[in-house]
């Protein structure tokens, strides 16, 4: 067996060589440096660093807020995707393009804009404040920012799945006497379930690592509103590199686990579809 099949097209050596060189230089060597750094402390020190109460609290806050945000997006993202694929209404194309705004907007800008809106004197904050609901500088604020940032993942993953659905299947369900709700619950929903799960997981994975849009609205109180990326930032500012690296390794492990989950869902849905 040869490593590469013969081809009459030129440039394999050059492009492959450059790709591997540049990939190693920019991505692989720096990431390997992180693993080596976290290996410079003993296992006990590593364990102590990643299970410190303040660190554990930040895992819980990040995980919980990401889970809530991804769930909110799963519900409303499904509604948005459905409306954009199935119905027509004035301004639909503009609304469709706007869904990508959280991707295109620099996160620092989103962060200060959301903080301005939800501060006690902001556009929404002033209505919530008399009701005793505080959003800015609380965990609720973190959830709002993570919902903003995760929305396009759910919508953009669901849209192609909804477009690919055959109308015939729905017609068959209707002709067999199913109500519209039954058709949705029994026919449409199972078919788009893998896409919904993938979108949910992508939004969740993004939320776990998000920094820019959260840092302004969260207030950064240890044990209360300090997310994992902020905690890493704080450790770095204290020149506590080894502990920062240890926490980063745990955070990276979590996002790779979510990615693995996404791959399993997609493999499973392909097998199911075939």
């Amino acid at each position, binding site marked *: 067996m040869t490593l590469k099949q013969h081809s009459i097209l030129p*440039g394999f050596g050059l492009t492959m060589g450059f790709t591997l060189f540049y990939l190693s230089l920019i991505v692989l060597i720096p990431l390997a440096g992180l693993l080596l750094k976290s290996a410079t402390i003993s296992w006990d020190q590593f364990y102590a660093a990643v299970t410190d109460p303040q660190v554990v609290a930040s895992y819980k806050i990040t995980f919980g807020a990401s889970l809530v945000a991804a769930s909110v997006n799963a519900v409303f993202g499904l509604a948005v995707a*459905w409306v954009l694929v199935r119905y027509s209404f004035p301004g639909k194309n503009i609304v469709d393009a706007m*869904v990508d705004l959280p991707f*295109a907007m*620099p996160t*620092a800008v989103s962060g200060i804009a959301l903080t301005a809106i939800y501060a006690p004197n902001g556009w929404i904050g002033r209505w919530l404040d008399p009701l005793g609901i505080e959003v800015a500088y609380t965990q609720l604020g973190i959830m709002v920012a993570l919902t903003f940032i995760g929305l396009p993942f759910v919508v953009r993953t669901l849209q192609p799945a909804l477009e690919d659905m055959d109308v015939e299947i729905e017609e068959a369900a*209707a002709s067999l006497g199913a109500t519209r709700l039954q058709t949705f619950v029994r026919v449409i929903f199972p078919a788009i379930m893998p896409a919904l799960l993938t979108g949910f997981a992508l939004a969740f994975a993004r939320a776990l690592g998000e*920094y820019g849009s959260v840092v302004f609205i969260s207030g950064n109180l240890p044990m209360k509103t300090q997310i994992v990326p902020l905690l890493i930032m704080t450790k770095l500012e204290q020149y506590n*590199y080894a502990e920062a690296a240890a926490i980063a390794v745990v955070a990276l492990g979590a996002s790779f686990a979510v990615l693995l989950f996404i791959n399993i869902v997609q493999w499973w849905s392909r097998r199911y579809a075939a």
Partner: protein
Amino acid sequence: MKHTENIRCRAAAATTESRWVRWLLIGVSLTFLGLFLAMPLAAVFAQALSRGWAMYVRSLGDSDALSAIRLTLLVALIAVPVNTVFGVAAAWAIAKFQFFGKSVLITLIDLPYSVSPVISGMVLVLLFGRQGWLGPWLEARGIHVVFAVSGIVLATLFVTFPFVARELIPLMQAQGTEEEEAARLLGASGWQTFRRVTLPNIKWGLLYGVILCNARAMGEFGAVSVVSGHIRGETNTMPLHVEVLYNEYNTTAAFAVASLLALLALVTLVLKSVLQWKTGEQLTPEEQGYTGD
């Protein structure tokens, strides 16, 4: 005639919802998008102009703001072309040839997407910082990476690494190799084949990748924030300058600089829609590869 129309109407009704369900869903969706998308966008411009047009112009004309704008443009001007060259080279190698370990290579190229921006910046500090592996050696030779422009460029290269490659690989794989092989058999050189056959085929996808790469390069915050050191007038990019101004309670000036970045986002969205309409496809977030800051 009347009869068939009647049947067609009923067939349509069987695969859609009643009028009030439709309007309820549209209403819920638009309210949600209005609260979460339109309102933050409007807030940026409202806050930026809250103390009048003159104040807005003065905020943007400030020398620190101008140097932040210059630095952001410089970083994008380096990072985007370098990652574009890489993206084209990687896509050529991956899409036009069969070799062992291809899917592993694609996974490795995607890696920066799944790394939190803060961690992306941090790996550079661990490597080039004062206590880092290479830092002391480089500093002895007068080369500074952390808290310097070169660190910002490296961080931006890392986070925008996959954008162009990820756009081109599926596109070039779908196009196959027949056209290029025909060009070669007719006597075209490798470079001629690429320029006259491949490039026209991938130009819209390439432009799409470049636009997304640029938006991220100019807007990156987390990774750049770790390596920059926030030195005003020296290592502050526009997003970092927004943060500095905001933390100094200079809200109007912060939103003025932010409004330029919001405009960039709007231009990106318009170009994206035009290109999508041109190529007639809707890309999933994984294909667009948005997973970072």
